[in-house]
């Protein structure tokens, strides 16, 4: 067997520079809910498990895990791993990381882990987590939580100035708002990883600037490309464009307490009047996929319920039946959040106009839009949901329980509420069944319009090898090489 150090030294060379759209705000994996930060921090920290691009949960720092009962999870840990500061990774690290996020309520992720009752180590390489109620989505959440060394406890602020994880790259520096610099971890536990010596992540929020940097050869990969930038990028020599259906469903949710849309016939009529094909083909240039269930394919619970039909005739009929004429709907948008959202909203307004419904588009600053939503001042709200983590429990719990939806959509359905609670158990077969049932109900009731699944578009330099266009918007460079 070739000694790992030798094999790696032979393989590793070069520097990759990535241009990401979202600035990092923290180096603490427990203190953010940003897809982009999760992606960057994944290079420095390892979580207990990872999720692959084909939706499988695979071992990282945990070699295996299983539920002992509905409220207990057991994790068996990988041996022979050390942190960048040389200290060994053991069960103490897991206990510390989990208890810290649960107990420090200032941490952004804290509220998710409140269901953890206790974390006990069982020797140095096994941990048992007991929960107050079934927590089937715990493994999914753990893919986003990098493990910290217990030494961080003695001085967190100092620790996060130069954090040590077990990840494929060591942290070198962070210039706030500008870039993060990482260097290869030469003693990483996975052979052949990483494949480059250095990674620099630059933050370039403006898409045309980001694309210009790639086209000028200054950087090697960019994320969050919008459909109208694709032609330009494809036409640039040395640049490749990659796309994949994302784990994200656009959702326009109704304000269910409003007289205008309370009646399910109304909502059905709106749904029938919208030509989703036109939106996908003409406005998004094909960079979207038709929806067949509220949960995108790849997540537990996804089931095929067929596409929603486009039938303006039936829409008019339903509106007449419901006795609604001269209807005006307030359609609230969060400014510049989603590609082509204004054009799409305008198209929808035209489509609804054809069946006699007037649409009032309100394109507001994000903060204002959210306030209006809390206050209930909308009929339809333009939003999306990128599943983070890779589990629909959060989506259902937030939007389809009475407590969760109270200041949002005002949704309330006891059957759905019951199914959500039942879907929390660890057994995937049970979860699949419960979630599929929830989706059938939602598909029928139409509390939301799901116009399309998004497509994630990346552009890379052709010098890169083995880059994977991920469905969860992560840009992961551990196994990417550069010519």
């Amino acid at each position: 067997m070739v000694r790992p150090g030798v094999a790696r030294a032979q393989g590793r060379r070069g520097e990759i520079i990535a241009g990401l759209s979202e600035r990092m705000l923290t180096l603490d994996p427990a203190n953010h809910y940003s897809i982009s930060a999760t992606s960057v921090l994944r290079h420095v920290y390892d979580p207990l498990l990872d999720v692959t691009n084909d939706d499988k949960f695979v071992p990282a720092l945990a070699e295996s895990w299983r539920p002992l009962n509905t409220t207990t999870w057991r994790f068996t840990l990988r041996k022979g791993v050390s942190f960048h500061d040389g200290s060994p990774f053991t069960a103490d690290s897991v206990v510390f990381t989990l208890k810290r996020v649960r107990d420090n309520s200032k941490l952004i992720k804290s509220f998710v882990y409140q269901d953890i009752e206790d974390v006990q180590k069982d020797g140095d390489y096994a941990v048992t987590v007991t929960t107050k109620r079934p927590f089937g989505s715990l493994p999914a959440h753990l893919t986003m939580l990098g493990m910290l060394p217990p030494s961080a406890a003695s001085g967190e602020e100092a620790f996060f100035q130069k954090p040590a994880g077990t990840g494929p790259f060591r942290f070198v520096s962070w210039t706030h708002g500008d870039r993060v610099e990482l260097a290869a971890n030469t003693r990483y536990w996975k052979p052949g990883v990483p494949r480059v010596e250095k990674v620099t992540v630059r933050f370039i929020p403006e898409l045309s600037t980001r694309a210009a940097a790639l086209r000028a050869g200054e950087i090697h990969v960019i994320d969050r490309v919008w459909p109208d930038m694709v032609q330009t990028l494809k036409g640039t020599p040395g640049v490749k464009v990659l796309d994949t259906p994302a784990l994200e469903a656009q959702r326009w949710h109704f304000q269910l307490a409003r007289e205008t849309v309370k009646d399910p016939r109304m909502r059905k009529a709106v749904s029938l009047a919208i030509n989703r094909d036109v939106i996908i083909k003409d406005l998004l240039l094909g960079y979207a996929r038709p929806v067949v269930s509220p949960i995108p394919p790849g997540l537990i619970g996804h089931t095929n319920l067929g596409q929603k039909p486009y039938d303006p005739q039936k829409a008019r009929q339903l509106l007449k039946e419901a006795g609604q004429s001269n209807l005006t709907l307030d359609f609230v948008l969060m400014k510049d959040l989603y590609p082509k959202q204004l054009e799409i909203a305008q198209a929808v307004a035209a489509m609804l106009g054809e069946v006699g419904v007037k649409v009032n588009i309100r394109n507001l600053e994000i903060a204002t839009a959210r306030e209006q939503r809390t206050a209930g001042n909308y009929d339809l709200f333009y939003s999306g949901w990128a599943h983070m983590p890779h589990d629909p429990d959060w989506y259902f719990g937030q939007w389809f329980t009475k407590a969760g939806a109270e200041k949002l959509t005002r949704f309330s359905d006891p059957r759905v509420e019951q199914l959500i609670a039942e879907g929390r158990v660890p057994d995937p077969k049970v979860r699949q069944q419960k979630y599929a049932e929830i989706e059938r109900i939602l598909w029928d009731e139409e509390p939301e319009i799901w116009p399309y699944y998004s497509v994630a578009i990346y552009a890379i330099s052709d010098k890169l090898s083995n880059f994977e266009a991920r469905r969860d918007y992560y840009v992961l460079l551990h196994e990417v090489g550069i010519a």
Partner: protein
Amino acid sequence: MRSYLLRRLGQAALTLAGVSLLVFVILRVIPGDPAKMLLPEGAPQSAVDALNRELGLREPIWVQYGIFLRSVARGDFGQSFQYRAPALRVVVERAPATIQLAFAAMLLTVLVGVSIGVLAAVRRGTGYDYAGTVLAVLGQSLPNFWLGIMLILLFGVTLRWLPTSGFQGWSYLVLPSVTLAAAVVSMNTTSAAAIPNPPVIPNHPQKGSPPGTPVPKS
């Protein structure tokens, strides 16, 4: 003299108080719940409330104003909600780049603007003058966000003479300062060109002065 000083000091204090109140009110009135903006969309209301309490935003408004004033007195700029870091640090981090860019842009403005202006004035009515005018008008009309992107595309992407973004040396300052200077150059040009022609005595140039010496109008 003393009453004058006291009066001015009093006015200054009043102005400062007014400004502090205005700043405070504007910050509170801007829509948006900081906790809601920091937490992900799906966070429960209890988490939002908890974070708001942490940020001190649940106190009565006059208590918040008091805290605000005390922080001002101590030079404590507080925490930036958006960057989740001490606000002073956020400002200080951006200061070097801002200062260098502003300086470079101003230098360009003065050098280029005044040169074109003087040239246009001295060669009034010639091609230089008209060119100067055209440049001035262009500079003022072209929106700088458009100009910036065009310069990036031309000099960064197509020609690859200059970097497209970032700040790692003097070459990174060129495109941004040209973009910033464009609008202001026009003003310097115009004012430099507006210096009236050196007034000339209708008939008798000063004896002994070299030809072309400006002569005061009588």
